[in-house]
C-alpha cells in the first residue's frame, strides 16, 4: 500500500524541551491509525505540525505523494486533511447550523446566506451521525458530546481524505462512541484515512488497524491491534511494565463522621443527602448530566443552593461562596483544569500558592517569596511534579503535571474534605496511576474525599462507598461489597433502583 501521508524526521523543540525528535509517521489510504503515548509524548504537537499550526524545525511531510507544508488549518482542510483538536472549536454563541457551515457558508446568487439548504444538509448530517440536535439552541447550551458531533460533522462536510481526531470519545457515552465508530468505518470504506488519538485503550483496540506509539518525542514502536495486548501497548507507552492499572486500595478503617449533607438542592440537583467519614473515599458515579458536578458546586458555594444543610465536624456551615468553603476546610479540584483551576499565564509557584496566601505572608501584608518557594518545592517533591523550574509557566507542563499542581494547591491548604471532579480526565496512564496513589494516601492520612468520576474502574478501585446520581438525585449509595460496574450502571441508567 502507498502511504497518503508520510512524515519523516520531524523534529521540533520548544524552549527547554525537545517535543519531537526525528519522528516518522505514515498513514495509508483507508487505514485507521491509532496514535498513542503519554501526555507530553508529542502526539498533539505532531498533528499540529501536520496542520501547520506549529512549524517543524526539521523533517519532511509528504501528502498524496507530494511535499506538503500546510500553513494552517484552512489550507490543510482544502487539501483534504481535517483535524479535530482536543479543545473544541465550536463557537458557543452560534447555533449548530452556523457552526457547521462556518467558513464555508452556502450562499444564494444574491450573496445572502442560503439558510434553507444549510438547514436541510445539517439535518441530514445529524441524522446520519445519529444525534438529535436542537437546531435552535446556541452551542453553549448543547452537551459536550453534541458539540463534539458538530465538530465531526464539520469535518465530514468537507471532502475529507484524512481525519485526525484528538481524544474524540473523552466526553461521549458508550452509545455515542459506537455511532462515532460507525462513522469512522464508513469513512474507511470510502477510502479515507483516520488518525485516532485516545487514552481509552479498549477503544483503540476496537477501531484501529495499526497503532503508532510515541514516547518522549520519539517513535517508541508500533503494534498490530489484532495480535497485540493491552499490556504490550502500555509498556510501549511508558517504557516499563506497570503492575495493574490502578492499585486496589485496602478498605479504610471507618473513622468519625466529618461531613453530613442533608437535602442539598439547587439547579438540577434535588434533595441529595450523604455522609462522609474521616479517611473515607466516597465515589460519585452517574452519567454526564446527572448533576454530579452541580452537586459539588452547590456543596462548595460556587452556585447558590436552594435548600439543604451542610454539617462539618458537627457544626452547621453557612457556605455562600467558595471562600467560605475553603475557610471551612474544603478543597476542590474541578473538572476542567485549564478553565476552572489554573491561571495559565502564571508560574507553577504562583498557581500552587493561590489558595494559601494567608499562610505565606509576612507582616500580614507581603507575600514571602522564600515561604512560597518552600511550599512549592515541598509539593513538587511530594507529588513528583516534573518541571524545569518552579518559575515555569504552568501552561508549559503536561496535563498530568498540571493536574498535580492543582491537587498540590489544595493539599497545601491542609483540607478536611477534598472534592475531586474527574481528577484523571485527559491525563496519561502513568500520571493517572500516580494521582490514584496520591488520593489513596490522602485518605489514609485522614482526609475525607469525594471522588466524582466517569471512569468506573477508577471509582471501584478507590472508593469505599459509591453514591450513584441520576437526574439530579442520589439514586443509590452502594457499599464496597455491592459496588460493581453492573450495579452502578444499573442505578445510573434505570429510572427506579
Amino acid at each position, binding site marked *: 500500500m502507498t502511504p497518503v501521508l508520510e512524515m519523516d524526521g520531524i523534529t521540533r523543540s520548544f524552549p527547554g524541551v525537545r517535543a519531537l525528535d526525528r519522528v516518522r509517521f505514515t498513514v495509508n489510504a483507508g487505514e485507521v491509525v491509532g496514535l498513542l503515548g503519554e501526555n507530553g509524548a508529542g502526539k498533539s504537537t505532531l498533528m499540529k505540525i501536520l496542520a501547520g499550526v506549529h512549524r517543524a524545525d526539521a523533517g519532511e511531510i509528504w501528502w498524496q505523494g507530494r511535499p506538503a507544508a500546510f500553513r494552517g488549518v484552512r489550507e490543510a482542510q482544502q487539501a483534504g486533511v481535517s483535524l479535530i483538536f482536543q479543545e473544541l472549536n465550536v463557537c458557543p454563541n452560534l447555533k449548530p447550523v452556523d457552526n457547521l457551515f462556518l467558513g464555508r457558508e452556502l450562499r444564494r446568487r444574491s450573496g445572502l446566506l442560503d439558510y434553507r439548504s444549510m438547514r436541510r444538509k445539517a439535518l441530514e448530517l445529524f441524522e446520519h451521525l445519529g444525534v438529535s440536535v436542537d437546531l435552535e439552541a446556541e452551542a453553549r447550551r448543547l452537551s459536550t458530546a453534541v458539540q463534539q458531533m458538530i465538530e465531526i460533522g464539520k469535518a465530514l462536510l468537507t471532502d475529507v481524505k484524512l481525519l485526525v481526531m484528538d481524544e474524540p470519545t473523552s466526553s461521549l457515552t458508550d452509545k455515542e462512541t459506537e455511532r462515532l465508530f460507525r462513522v469512522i468505518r464508513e469513512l474507511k470504506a470510502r477510502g479515507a484515512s483516520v488518525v485516532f488519538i485516545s487514552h481509552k485503550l479498549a477503544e483503540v483496540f476496537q477501531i484501529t488497524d495499526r497503532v503508532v506509539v510515541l514516547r518522549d518525542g520519539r517513535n517508541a514502536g508500533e503494534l498490530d491491534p489484532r495480535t497485540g495486548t493491552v499490556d504490550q501497548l502500555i509498556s510501549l507507552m511508558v517504557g516499563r511494565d506497570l503492575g495493574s492499572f490502578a492499585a486496589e486500595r485496602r478498605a479504610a478503617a471507618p473513622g468519625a463522621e466529618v461531613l453530613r449533607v442533608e437535602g442539598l438542592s439547587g439547579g438540577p440537583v434535588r434533595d441529595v443527602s450523604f455522609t462522609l467519614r474521616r479517611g473515607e473515599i466516597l465515589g460519585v458515579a452517574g452519567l454526564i448530566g446527572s448533576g454530579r458536578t452541580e452537586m459539588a458546586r452547590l456543596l*462548595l458555594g460556587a452556585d447558590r443552593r436552594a435548600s439543604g444543610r451542610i454539617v462539618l465536624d458537627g457544626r452547621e456551615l453557612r457556605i455562600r461562596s467558595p471562600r467560605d468553603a475553603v475557610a471551612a476546610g474544603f478543597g476542590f479540584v474541578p473538572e476542567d483544569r485549564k*478553565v476552572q483551576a489554573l491561571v495559565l499565564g*502564571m508560574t507553577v509557584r504562583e498557581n500552587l500558592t*493561590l489558595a494559601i*496566601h494567608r499562610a505565606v*505572608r509576612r507582616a500580614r501584608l507581603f507575600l514571602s517569596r522564600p515561604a512560597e518557594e518552600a511550599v512549592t518545592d515541598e509539593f513538587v517533591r511530594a507529588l513528583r511534579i516534573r518541571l524545569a523550574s518552579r518559575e515555569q509557566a504552568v501552561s508549559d507542563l503536561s496535563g498530568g503535571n498540571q493536574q498535580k499542581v492543582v491537587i498540590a494547591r489544595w493539599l497545601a491548604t491542609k483540607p478536611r474534605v477534598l472534592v475531586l471532579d474527574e481528577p484523571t480526565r485527559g491525563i496519561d496512564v502513568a500520571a493517572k496511576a500516580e494521582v490514584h496513589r496520591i488520593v489513596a494516601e490522602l485518605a489514609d492520612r485522614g482526609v475525607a474525599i469525594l471522588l466524582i468520576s466517569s471512569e468506573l474502574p477508577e471509582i471501584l478501585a478507590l472508593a469505599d462507598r459509591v453514591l450513584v446520581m441520576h437526574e439530579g438525585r442520589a439514586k443509590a449509595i452502594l457499599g464496597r461489597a455491592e459496588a460493581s460496574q453492573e450495579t452502578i450502571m444499573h442505578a445510573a441508567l434505570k429510572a427506579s433502583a
Partner: protein
Amino acid sequence: MDATLAPSRRNPLANLLRRKEAAILIALLLLTLVIAVIAPRFVSGTNLYQVSRQISFVAIVALGELFVILTGGIDLSVGSVMGWAGMVSAWAMVALGLSPPLAILVGVAAGVAMGAINGSLIAYVKLPPFIATLGMLSFAYGLVLGLSKGWPITGLPRSFHWVAQGSILYLPVPVWIAGLLAVTAHVVLTYTAFGRRTYAIGGNEQATFLSGIDIDRIKFVLYMISAGLAAISGVVLTSRFGSAQPDTGRGWELDAIAAAVIGGTSLAGGSGTVLGVVIGACIMGVLRSGLVMMGIDPYWHISIIGVVIVLAAVLDVKTKKA
C-alpha cells in the same frame, strides 16, 4: 535545576533589555531623540521640568487604570472623577474654609466615593465595567456642571498652589507624588496577596473564584483605587491651574488608557506592569509637548497621537509574538 530559566543576575543591562518593557523604553528614547534633533529647546532644563510635571498627571491616572485593566476591566470615568475631586476640594477650601491638606483629603474622598459606586455596580450588581463607568463618566461630569453652574471656583489659598507649582530638590512636587504612588503601586501589585489576586482574576477569574478568593471584594476595591488615583491627579491639576475648572479632566480617560496600553498592559487582563505604564505615560507626555515644540500645527496633534497609539500597540503585538 532552574538555572536555565531564571534571569541572570550578572548583567543588569542585559536583564533590562530582556524585559518586555525594553521595546517601549527604546521607543521613548528614540522619540525624545527625534524631537531633540528637530527642536533642541525640548531638552532644555525648563522644558523638561514642565514636561515631567505634565507627565505626572497622566501617569497617576494611568496607574489607576492599570489596576482595573489587569482584571480585564476598564474605568472610563477617571476624567470626570478628576474634575469632580478638584471641584470638591476647591469648594472645601473656599466655601468651608478648610486648610489645603484637609481639603485635599475631602476631594480625594469624594473621588473614592464615586469609585465605590463604580465598584458596587460592577462587583455586586454585575454590570459590565464599560457600562458602569460610562454612566459614571456622564454622572460625575454632570454633577460638577450642575453644582458649579459651569463657573470655575477661584480664590484658592496661596499655600495650595505649592502642591503643583512647588518643587523639592529641583523636581516638581507632582513628580514626587507620581513617583511615590508608582512605587507604592508596584509594591502592592508585586509583593502583596491583593496584587497577586488582581493578576489572577485577569488571568482566570473562574479559577480564582474557585480557589476561595473573594473576587467581588477585590474588584470593588480596585475601582476605588482607580477613582482615588484619578482624584489625586484631579486635585493636583486644580492646584496647577490655581482654580477649579468644570472641564478639568475632560477626555483624560483616553490618555490614561492609551498610556496603559502603550505601556504593554493587556486589555484582556492578566498582564501589565507599573514600569510599563509609567513609560507609556512618558511617551504620551513627551509626544504632546514635542509636537508643540516642533511647531506643528495644533490642529494636527490629535491625529498624530492617534497614529502613535496604534503604532505602539502594533509594536507590542509584534514583540510579544517574537
